[in-house]
């Protein structure tokens, strides 16, 4: 079963994402900031990372760069309300496989995760 790491400083968003993916049977883990995400990812080697951008301790973009080095096989989907064109481009150019703007519907997340897992 795929392993999905949920990274967001907002506990509500983490719970919302876990609910959205609960019925898939995926193994779910979570982190509340960029530093923690890098630590968890280095141990669990997630197939997919759902990554917020604006977080304490370490920004999502810095975490994205580190995750690309530590586990290049992980497919990273950025989830953020900061969906300006230039920032979306920056995230995709840095190696993210997708960008889902907040607020999102659970089916959007499910669709985005399934899509990157099929590639």
């Amino acid at each position, binding site marked *: 079963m795929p392993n999905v790491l949920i990274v967001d400083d907002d506990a509500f968003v983490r719970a919302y994402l876990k609910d959205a993916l609960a019925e898939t049977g995926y193994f779910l883990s979570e982190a509340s900031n960029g530093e923690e995400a890098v630590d968890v990812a280095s141990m669990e080697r997630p197939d997919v990372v759902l990554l917020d951008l604006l977080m304490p*301790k370490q920004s999502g973009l810095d975490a994205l760069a580190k995750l690309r080095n530590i586990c290049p096989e992980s497919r990273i989907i950025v989830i953020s309300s*900061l969906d300006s064109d*230039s*920032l979306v481009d920056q995230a995709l150019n840095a190696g993210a496989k997708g960008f889902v703007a907040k607020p999102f519907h659970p089916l959007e997340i499910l669709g985005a995760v399934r899509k990157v897992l099929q590639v």
Partner: protein
Amino acid sequence: MANYWICDSSNRILGPLGLGTLRELVASGRVRELSKVSRDGSRWQTLDEVPEVSRVVTEGAAEGGERAQKFKAAQIRSRLAAMRGRKAHEIFGIARASTLDHYRTAFFRLVKPFHPDKLSGDTHPDLRAANEEMFKFLSTLMVEAEAELGAATPRSHGESSTSRSKLREKQDRIPNYGAEEFVGIKRGPHFIEATVRVNPGNVGIFTDHSMVNLSTMGVFLPTTHHLPLGTLLDVRFVFENSSREIKARARVVWENVGVVAKSVSGFGVRLLRLDKSDQLFIQQYVDQKSIAQVERV
């Protein structure tokens, strides 16, 4: 391209970002309440210590505010376009056969959000203009509705119903004062002063108008001069047969530029700061003159 990390008041970090992206995020309201900035992601400084970021944040916030206000102005104009050509009762959301009081209540409820006093001093000119367009449109609609309902009669305070009806019968429904009662406007670098010569024949400027009268702390100034809605001015009242002179700060809240038939051109002001004693004097002056007028009829 220089990169920056920003930190908001909740200690959340975003970066690295270029100044263009930061400006876009601030202008769209997606990023706000920034407290710190870093050039390397580890050493943090206040915004003031990084002037190029501080400038972008200030400009972005101003641009965002301007964009939001322009959007609001467009919304008001779109609403106005939908109103044009429709009857007053349809726009006010009341039955056509409603009483004048119902029309007035509905009018005031509708026009209130567009009143010039509701706008702050730094409101974007486009939003101010859109508010004025709506305010003028609704005010004109109300005046026309009043004319249609045949209610443009004086409502002097202190009159008995008998004396009022007597006065009504004798009046031609056209106000008996004109622009000549209004002495004029004096403009200085930092002030506008309007002088009004009040006499027994024109006390109706305090009572005749349904929207600007003593009960609403307003007065109608008959004149061909034009002052935009929202203009602040000093009004000086000089009373015939009295040594009393009253000065008050006022704001233009209504204007009739001659679109309504059988009415005098001019504008209505709301008196912002009027002493109780001055208010009482005007009230008594109006009452005395109205009674004398009725007695003569």
